[in-house]
């Protein structure tokens, strides 16, 4: 029997289809890359401007600072004195006479007890002070032993609280002199600098001022000296610094 094979249409196996699709995909990608690569090479675009991102806060523009004329300080108001009113002495009320003897006895007893209590307290305090003094002497003796060979004296330099107080005084002095330090604009020059040493008495009055460094411009120097003259009297120095400002003086650097 002659059999004829039926012409069955060929079906593509799944692996073949997958391979073809992969090839197609690769070819398409290559074509895309070639197309855009050639386009970029032959027809270059304008350069892309990349600006840094910025944060924009919606704020208003500043107001104008009003330049007001310098206010003159008002004269100090006279101290407020309370009006003097006539005082009428209270009229004592008339009371009935009472027997005060038992009450006076009781009061004497209380006073005696209180006196004894106070005396005891005073004695205790004295005892405590003596004990503290002894302890202090012992500590001092220890310290002296440790510092043997060194000459320790109080010295003249300022430390700790004293120095802080002195700096506070200098700050007040600086503000005070600066209030009187005026310069015309035509003399405003960074290169002009002068120093004036001032000697101040216990009231703050300048007893002597010496131009120790000249700016080179006598007009500038004169105005520095004028500022010192107008600023005198200076703030009163604290008692413990009177000698320092009176003998050593303070050098003011302008500006």
């Amino acid at each position, binding site marked *: 029997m002659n059999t004829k094979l039926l012409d069955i249409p060929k079906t593509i196996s799944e692996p073949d289809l997958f391979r073809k699709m992969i090839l197609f995909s690769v070819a398409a990608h290559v074509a895309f890359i070639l197309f855009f690569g050639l386009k970029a090479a032959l027809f270059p675009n*304008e*350069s892309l*401007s990349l*600006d840094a991102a*910025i944060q*924009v*806060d919606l*704020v*208003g*523009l*500043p*107001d*104008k*600072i009003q*330049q007001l004329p310098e206010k003159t300080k008002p004269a100090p108001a006279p101290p407020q004195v309370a009006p003097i009113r006539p005082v009428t002495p209270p009229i004592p009320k008339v009371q009935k006479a009472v027997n005060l003897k038992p009450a006076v006895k009781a009061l004497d007893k209380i006073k005696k007890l209180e006196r004894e209590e106070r005396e005891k307290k005073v004695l205790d305090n004295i005892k405590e002070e003596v004990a503290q003094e002894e302890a202090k002497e012992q500590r001092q003796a220890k310290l002296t032993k440790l510092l043997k060979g060194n000459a320790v004296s109080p010295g003249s330099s300022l430390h700790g609280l004293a120095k802080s107080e002195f*700096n506070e005084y*200098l*700050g007040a*002095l*600086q503000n005070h*002199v*600066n209030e009187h*330090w*005026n*310069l*015309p*604009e*035509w003399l*405003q*020059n960074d290169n002009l600098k002068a*120093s004036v*040493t001032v000697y101040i008495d216990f009231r703050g009055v300048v007893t002597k001022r010496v131009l120790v460094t000249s700016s080179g411009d*006598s*007009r500038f120097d*004169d*105005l520095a000296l004028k*500022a010192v003259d107008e600023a005198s009297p200076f703030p009163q120095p604290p008692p413990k610094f009177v000698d*320092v400002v009176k003998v*050593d*003086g*303070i*050098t*003011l*650097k*302008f*500006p």
Partner: protein
Amino acid sequence: MKFFIFLVLALLSSMTSFADDDKIYINVGQAKVKKSLVAFPPLVFLGTPSVAPGFKQVGGDLFNTILNDLDVSNLFTIIKQQAYLEDSAKVGLTPAPGNPNGFHFESWSKIGSEFLIRGGYKMKSPTDLEFEVYVYYVPQAKLVLGKIYAAKASEARVTAHTFSDDLMKALTGKRGIFRTKFVAASDKAGNKWKEIYVMDWDGRNNIQVTNHHSISLSPAWRPDGKTISYTSFAYHPNLKSRNPDLFTYDIFTGKRFLVSSRLGINSGSAFSPDGNSIILTISKGEGPDIYKMNVEGDNLEKITNGPKGSLNVEPAVSPDGNKIAFSSDRSGVPMVYIMDADGSNVKRITFAGRYNSSPSWSPDGKKIVFAGQDKDHFDLFTVSVDDLTDMQRLTSAKTTSGRNANNEDPSFSPDGRHIVFTSDRTGKNQIYIITTDGTSERRITVDSHNYFKPKWSPYID
């Protein structure tokens, strides 16, 4: 630990008071600025009246011009003549006892005068002026300046300005601004046209320098102080329309050149400090961008590049030529930016307000003044280039109807102490000047016309 100790020592040494070499020092600090009291008695006529009948007019011009200069300088307070103890007409220009009939310093020191200006003039002929003037520093009885100026009688005001400049130089070491000029656009010529005008800084000698019968605007000075550039809507016969073209004009020779007539905007020009290049806005039918070209209009280089659709206008070149400030709406609203001269390193410098424009550099390059709008009007502001938080409003004015006036178009003076601008507070856009700290504002033009975009000239020799 060592670093900590070093830090503590450094902090201590920076305190105002310290004690090195056993002395106690205080740094007094910066002085308050004060004005100097100056006495300026009337000028003495030293000539023969019959030689020049117009001598009073000349003397008046000299005196009033100097008086105004002294006032505007902001350095002086002028003592009223009623306070004078000495009749200057009866004593000489120089002091006694050197001059037996001289003035006495005590007469001036007693009224607190720090400076005394004594001047006299004579006319050698009706047209020839000789002005002799001396300035004394009264506290030290010292001569600061003494000169004799010879000029034409018609140049009395220039002579007075020259003396004021010399006085500024003698006192501050810096040149005065009294011979500088303004250039501005104005509708003064009528017919809705705007032409360009050049005037002295005090508004005198207002001269029209264009006659295009068109809209001419945005003038600028070349650093030599001789040439200006401006834009005018010139008629192009081939296009049968007008185009904003850029011109230059020599104010001394009267020569005019068409520099750029590229289609579209050719405007907002500024010169480089060497005067050899012009920076301007050109649109060429596209978005307006900033370009650079030579003074002949060639060698065009694009400096800004978009972003697309944004405006980049009003370039202002820094005094050293390394930076350009400009206005741009690239952030959505017009703001002021700076960039390097080649267009790189663009940096926005204004963030506040709704509309900031018209930047102008201070001569030291440290500040920029601009016009800013935050509500319904423009005011002038300065901002430090290195510290954008250091911003100051300079102006604040009301119109006659009570609304806030517009103060716009600022430009720094060459000495950096003043700014010229326009304001509509009177109902017309007039020219004003103000000091850079926002004080001492004064009106310069007093007429019924409008002025736009005034620019302060460089020093003019």
